[in-house]
């Protein structure tokens, strides 16, 4: 009957109960949706890197010297302005910085043709879990280059050029055979190219320095150390530019940048609002119910019984409000998640020449990746329990101080 008494009490004061439940639901709903959207933004920003298995991408911009390019002619194989060849010393620095767990290199090239241009990327196949080689997960046909002279073509480019699996083509005057077609997805356009070759083939196309590489992919032992390692790289080799998911966050605009802090502030406000609402409501209820509490104490209820009753009432309201809030919060977050989000590529990571205005390759439109999170669910339920607990504790203390003799004297 304790539960029945709780239910009766809440039903009897249905308007107040409904306001409490809705108040808590709005608080929790805001908390859940804001956090889910904020996490979605962070996840979207980290997608380009997550898909490559990397935490950092290191490059070196042009310094008025173009290795192997033979002057300023805009014909044939060229190095992108943002991707000059990294020296052996720079590679050594990257590999030896404390906190770097793995490194992988790639060689990104531009090929200027009489009718246009294309991007060619040499991929290090020896590191199957780091770098552009991971794009192999999106092969729609064929396989990654297994031998010299084999190439994989980006699916849309192949369609545009009318190229099919098994066709041959010339790159930098050398014959290649298309052995696979792939589609670059989910924000991985930082490693997007029209054609992927074995690293050695790409290096041979560029010529010049032995085994040149112009993009370094770094995986860290602890991603939390990202900032320190970025600083160490730039300090050790000032010409290098380091990109991370933060670089994307900056490009994704104000909302994503402040979302973490905003989520925290909004969460605290929601929590305080919910606590204040239920405290105020229960305090008013306590005044109304003074005679009832007096009688309950008179017939033998102890302070603990009263506290248990109030805790039960608070928990039922918080529980219902919390569940409703979770539903509302996730519904809102998934609704926001259906909206498209454009992930622009920072200049340094853009694989195309600045003159190219091909948005499909330089930026990518994705849906905000909203995911159900057990962590968020647990925190929300924790907030609900805290809210109910605080309200019940405060009211329980107030009720415990009410002496039946005083209550009856005032009636």
């Amino acid at each position: 009957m304790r539960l029945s008494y709780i239910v009766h009490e809440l039903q009897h004061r249905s308007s107040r109960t409904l306001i409490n439940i809705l108040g808590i639901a709005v608080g929790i709903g805001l908390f859940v949706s804001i956090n889910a959207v904020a996490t979605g933004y962070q996840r979207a920003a980290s997608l380009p890197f997550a898909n490559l298995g990397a935490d950092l991408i290191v490059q070196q911009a042009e310094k008025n010297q173009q290795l192997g390019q033979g002057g300023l002619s805009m014909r044939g194989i060229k190095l992108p302005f943002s991707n000059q060849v990294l020296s052996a010393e720079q590679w050594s620095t990257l590999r030896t910085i404390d906190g770097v767990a793995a490194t992988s290199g790639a060689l990104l090239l531009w090929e200027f043709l009489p009718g246009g241009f294309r991007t060619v990327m040499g991929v290090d196949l020896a590191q199957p879990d780091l770098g552009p080689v991971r794009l192999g997960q999106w092969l729609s046909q064929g396989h990654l280059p297994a031998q010299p002279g084999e190439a994989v073509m980006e699916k849309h480019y192949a369609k545009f050029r009318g190229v099919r699996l098994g066709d041959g083509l010339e790159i930098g005057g050398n014959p290649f055979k298309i052995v696979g077609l792939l589609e670059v997805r989910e924000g991985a356009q930082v490693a997007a190219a029209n054609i992927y070759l074995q690293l050695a083939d790409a290096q041979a196309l560029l010529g010049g320095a032995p085994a040149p590489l112009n993009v370094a992919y770094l995986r860290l032992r602890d991603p939390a150390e990202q900032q320190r390692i970025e600083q160490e790289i730039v300090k050790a080799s000032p010409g290098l530019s380091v990109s991370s998911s933060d670089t994307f966050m900056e490009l994704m605009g104000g909302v994503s940048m402040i979302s973490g802090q905003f989520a925290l502030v909004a969460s605290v406000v929601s929590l305080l609002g919910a606590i204040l609402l239920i405290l105020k409501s229960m305090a008013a209820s306590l005044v109304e119910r003074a005679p009832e509490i007096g009688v309950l104490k008179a017939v033998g209820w102890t302070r603990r019984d009263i506290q248990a009753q109030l805790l039960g009432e608070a928990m039922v309201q918080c529980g219902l409000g919390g569940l409703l809030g979770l539903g509302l919060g996730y519904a809102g977050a998934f609704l926001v998640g259906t909206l498209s989000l454009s992930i622009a590529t920072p200049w340094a990571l853009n694989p195309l020449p600045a003159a190219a205005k091909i948005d499909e390759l330089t930026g990518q439109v994705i849906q905000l990746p909203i995911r159900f999170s057990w962590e968020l669910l647990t925190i929300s339920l924790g907030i609900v329990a805290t809210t109910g607990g605080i309200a019940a504790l405060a009211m329980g203390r107030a009720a415990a101080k009410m002496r039946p003799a005083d209550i009856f004297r005032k009636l």
Partner: protein
Amino acid sequence: MALVEAKELKKTYLAGDIPVEAIRGVSFSIPPASFVSFIGPSGSGKSTLLNMIGCLDPPTAGVLTVAGQDVSRMNARESAKFRGTHIGFIFQDFNLIPVLTVFENIEYPLLMVQNWPVQERKERVNTLLAAVGMQEQGYKYPHQISGGQKQRVAVARALVTRAELVLADEPTANLDRETALHIITLMKAMRDEFGTTFIFSTHDPKIVRNAETVFTLEDGQLAASKTEGGFHG
């Protein structure tokens, strides 16, 4: 052996910083199965005395024994437990729990205080409902019954735990004459049936006429007592 025995009972309140002596050295003895009334003008200390007998308010000095136990030194938890098993209460404003039905209002001391088994509980509540003539009204809520019916429910609630002592503070003050008479008759019948002692604080002459012992309080002191044999000043 007396059911209630008070020796030199005193109660002093603080009204702000000023001590107010509400009860000033009262002694009396009430045997089991009595029908007793405390009368006196407002502020004479009737309710204070009832609160002390009911373990709702501890005395400042003196000794108070109820059902063989010294209740004057009990802590809050012991008092609550003692009230739950030995004492029933009837209030001027009925004080039924508005969200519970008549049946549940009578039942809850058994369930929420004494934890009786379901079947025994139902039988006991039905017995009391029948005893107070409310067996057809068990499903109703307090707002659906009259004042007299509410007080009948309150009587049943006070008796449901087989309390040896029922304290009634102005139980007929909010009832019309006829209903009040019915309630008094009912309580006396309950006393006869269950052997329960009823102690009232009242101004109601109908109760006073029916009481077997009447204690008159003036300024916190016993001015007189009357048993069916006559007054003792």
